[in-house]
């Protein structure tokens, strides 16, 4: 990883999921390592992030890359352009996770052959839904259904206006006259062959949706006269970058109009649009998309536990626990605009009835989610006390100090944990009279040098969370034995989840780590060496401004570096 400092030997980069294994490779297989050590070593296997990378030189952008629409961007584009009456059950392609991030995957993936088939089927299905009822058709194509009986002949000006209007929204730019001509030939042929004007619209919409201009975000820019090696995005392309970053969806008419008028080229005009985007309700889904990626929340949608062990658990818990975290961070970032680090220390959270029962707090009076406050003697605060974190970083039948510890180091602090070695026997002792807690069973990791290099730094952060079982329920004992919840994080000792949360909130690696994750989400790649200056600058202003995520989102959107890319590599 680029964050390595010289004091430590190089480590393998954090796993991506192009290998279809995900960060779970790392987190899942660290369960244990002892007995047979091929290459005994006690070298540290966890690499600190380092607060300030002093190697940052002059700013240098990375090349631009086509971004394939992510699953949520595809859904949001259909929603924004066609309205919520149009149903797309499953997007054409699942997100590809690279470095654990859908945003990075979107910059390197293409559409698979199966995805081409899916996209075609979805495109015709949307085209069909749009014209399925008289009311739907009247909303979408009023000029076609204006007369009591649809005319048997094709109304060419009407079709052309539909193509122009919806093409602009779907392709995020004006449709050229040449493109409109080609679409009209297609639409006319369809209406004639199928003997129904509505089929013209169906095939027209299907063509717009299968275009690479829809399914990829085409942001390539053009060279600036002063610096030919630097590409500057057009105002229209930049409108797309802003909208997908802040809304996780396409620009609306107002943003496209502002780009066309040249407003985005002026600081005041840009600020007005960024403020408008951040104040819009769609900013919540934009933020949620980032938080999903940052904290790996999407796995909660499909969380399963052995309900003979965790009897209060059910399939609705995972999605609710994800929603809880999303709402908590929406509140801190967009509503109260508070210090983001309060996400670890706050006693307030959003719960629905199911979560209220699990947390043992009064259920909100209304249906859905409501804000509650944990009592002052509660063992929980913030993210590290949430069921979403505690139950996801666990096994189906029990807790996992290793998964929890690795999440804190990697995801929250951007430290690097090396993957477990192959060809190591990883069995851990069964529960026995003298081995009742995970701390006792994992003790071997800490005494075998080969294992200790990884496991002491991970487990000393994870074991103090053993006060919560594999479903996130508070407990005082494990298998009848009292729990020792002491631990150590980068030089500070602590006791229990509350103190750990305070330490993570105050950890010097946290601010830059958040900045790196936001930058990655916005740009679609992990910051390159030339971009470290931008990371440092954003981090400085983030800290100086009181760690407010709202201000950080605005800083990223307003930064000049968000408008430029280095020239793409040519040649074969």
């Amino acid at each position, binding site marked *: 990883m680029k964050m390595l400092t010289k004091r430590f030997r190089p480590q*393998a*980069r954090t796993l*991506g*999921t*192009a*290998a279809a*294994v*995900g960060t*779970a*490779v790392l987190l899942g297989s660290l*369960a*244990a390592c002892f007995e047979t050590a091929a290459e005994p070593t006690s070298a540290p296997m966890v690499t600190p992030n380092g607060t300030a990378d002093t190697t940052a030189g002059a700013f240098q952008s990375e090349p631009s890359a*086509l971004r394939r629409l992510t699953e949520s961007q595809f859904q949001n584009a259909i929603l924004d352009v066609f309205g919520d009456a149009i149903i797309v059950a*499953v997007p054409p392609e*699942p997100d590809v996770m690279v*470095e654990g991030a859908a945003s990075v995957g979107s910059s*390197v*993936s*293409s*559409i*698979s*052959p*199966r995805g*081409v*088939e899916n996209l*075609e089927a979805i495109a015709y299905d949307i085209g069909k839904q749009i014209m399925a009822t008289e009311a739907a058709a009247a909303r979408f194509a009023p000029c076609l259904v204006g007369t009591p009986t649809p005319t048997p002949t094709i109304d060419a000006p009407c079709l052309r206006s539909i193509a122009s209007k919806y093409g602009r929204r779907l392709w995020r730019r004006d449709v050229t006259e040449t*493109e409109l001509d080609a*679409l009209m030939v*297609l639409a006319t*042929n369809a209406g004639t*062959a*199928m*003997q129904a004007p509505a089929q013209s619209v169906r*095939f027209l919409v299907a*063509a717009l949706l299968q*275009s*690479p201009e829809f399914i990829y975000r*085409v942001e*390539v820019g053009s060279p600036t006269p002063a610096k030919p090696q630097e590409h500057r995005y057009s105002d229209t392309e930049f409108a797309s970058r802003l909208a997908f970053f802040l809304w996780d969806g396409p620009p609306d008419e107002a943003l496209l109009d502002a780009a066309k008028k040249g407003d985005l080229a002026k600081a005041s005009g840009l600020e007005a649009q960024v403020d408008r985007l951040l104040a819009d309700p769609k900013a919540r889904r934009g933020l949620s998309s980032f938080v999903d990626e940052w904290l790996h929340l999407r796995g909660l949608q499909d969380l*399963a536990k*052995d*309900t*003979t062990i965790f009897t209060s*658990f059910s*399939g609705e818990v995972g999605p609710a626990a994800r929603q809880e975290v999303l709402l908590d961070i929406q509140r801190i970032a967009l509503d109260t605009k508070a210090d983001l680090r309060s996400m670890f220390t706050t006693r307030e959270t959003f719960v629905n009835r199911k979560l209220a029962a699990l947390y043992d707090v009064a259920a909100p009076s209304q249906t859905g989610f409501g804000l509650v406050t944990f009592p002052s003697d509660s063992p929980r605060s913030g993210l590290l006390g949430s069921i979403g974190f505690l139950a996801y970083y666990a*096994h*189906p*039948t*029990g807790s996992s100090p290793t998964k929890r510890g690795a999440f804190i180091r990697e995801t929250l602090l951007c430290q690097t944990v090396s993957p*477990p070695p*192959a*060809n*190591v*026997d*990883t*069995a851990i002792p*069964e529960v026995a009279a003298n081995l009742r807690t995970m701390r006792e069973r994992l003790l071997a990791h800490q005494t075998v040098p080969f294992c200790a290099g990884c496991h002491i730094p991970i487990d000393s952060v994870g074991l103090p969370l053993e006060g919560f079982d594999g479903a996130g329920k508070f407990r005082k004992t494990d298998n009848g034995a009292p729990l020792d919840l002491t631990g150590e994080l980068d030089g500070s000792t602590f006791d229990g989840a509350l103190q750990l949360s305070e330490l993570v909130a105050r950890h010097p690696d946290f601010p830059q780590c958040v900045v790196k994750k936001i930058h990655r989400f916005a740009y679609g790649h992990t910051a390159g060496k030339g971009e470290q200056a931008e990371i440092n600058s954003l981090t400085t202003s983030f800290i100086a401004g009181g760690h407010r995520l709202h201000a950080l989102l605005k800083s990223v959107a307003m930064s000049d570096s968000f408008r430029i890319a280095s020239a*793409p*590599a*040519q040649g074969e």
Partner: protein
Amino acid sequence: MPNFKLDRRTVLRGLVGGAAVSVALPPLEAFMNASGTAYANGTPFPKRFGVFFWGNGVIPDRWAPTGEGTNWQLSEQLAPLAAHKADINVITGFKVNVKNDRPHGAGPAGLLTGAALRTDMYVAPTVDQVIAKELGGETRFRSLEFGVQRSTRSLSYASPTQMNPIETSPARLFDRLFGEDFRDPNATTGPDPRLPLRRSVLDGVLAQSTALKARLGASDRARIEQHLEGVRSLERQIARLEASPVSLAACALPNAPLADYTDVAGRQQLSAVSRAMSDLLAMALACDQTRVFFDMFTQPLADILIGTASAGHHQLTHDEAGNQPNVHGIILTIMQEFAYLLGALKAIPEGSGTLLDNCVILGTTDCGFGRTHQLNNYPLIVAGKGGGFLKTGLHIKSTTEDNASRVMLTLVNAMGLRRADYGLDTAKSSDRLTAIEAS
């Protein structure tokens, strides 16, 4: 023109709604040659290729058969395959010859592509897609990727940037295969006016993409080009539908599966879903809707609860002590479902044999011994005779850690691809496993 689509759907709905689904079939013999190995016009039966994959390896000591060649006995973990012993080859002692730097990730990449991962990315297409590229244009679907574990991440790569998604809902797979666009190859219907229109939409996509490519850098151009390969493939598939299909006697519309399979005490109904998928696959192949499939029972690192196991599969492979009775039980469950799949294909007559005889199916996983995720003693099962190209009923055992790419080379050749070698660098092999080839 009559509204073909509406009539067709009405007919299909009537069939699906009925208690027993059957369609009138033409007499089998009319379409066969005298020896029963091909159609009367000389066209051989289509050959099909598939992968059956599961996560987390096996326990090699309990996996490897005793005996060798034609004289061998199934091991305890292979016992569920007893009914198909004569239809499979078990290949043991082989090694996936890439660096094992990504537990559970290096193995499938190294086996299926013959190449190591590079910065976590696949660098070459997987074997199913190597074959689909050659055969896929012959059928309505280039290939079918489906799975049993929910939310499974695919291991089927058409290129480094193209991962074919896995369908894990039997109901959605049914709709895709046998929904409104399904045309029974044995039914006589008029031409569908939508087909040429669909092709002209794709022509428009290709034309627009050509203009777009001119504005892009090299890597983005390559990504668009890979996308367009899929578009061209789809055009060929549509053109194939416009031509009159080969009649396939065994093709019949199957029953629709359940809309949903709800978990029981936190456990997915893996066996029920797997059997529904296998039944759909069998008819998809019998109706020649595709010739290539990738079936992921579970994904690498799957930590779900399987059967009656006491904990998640992946956790058990590492934590469970001794001879791992829980892990063993899970392997038995998986092999039972593999056996069901093979049985479903074997139940369909094709000529003088069965559909399975015209298949080549690779059964494999993400490592050898799950506990240590090693790449030697890699589990490999080859089922089906590939239309007579392969011998079956053998246990092939290597005592020298033979290169697993030898097996892959043999399989792609069995499917009719003329490949001199398979794999890259350390995993490359140009030495076919002739012991399983029919002379």
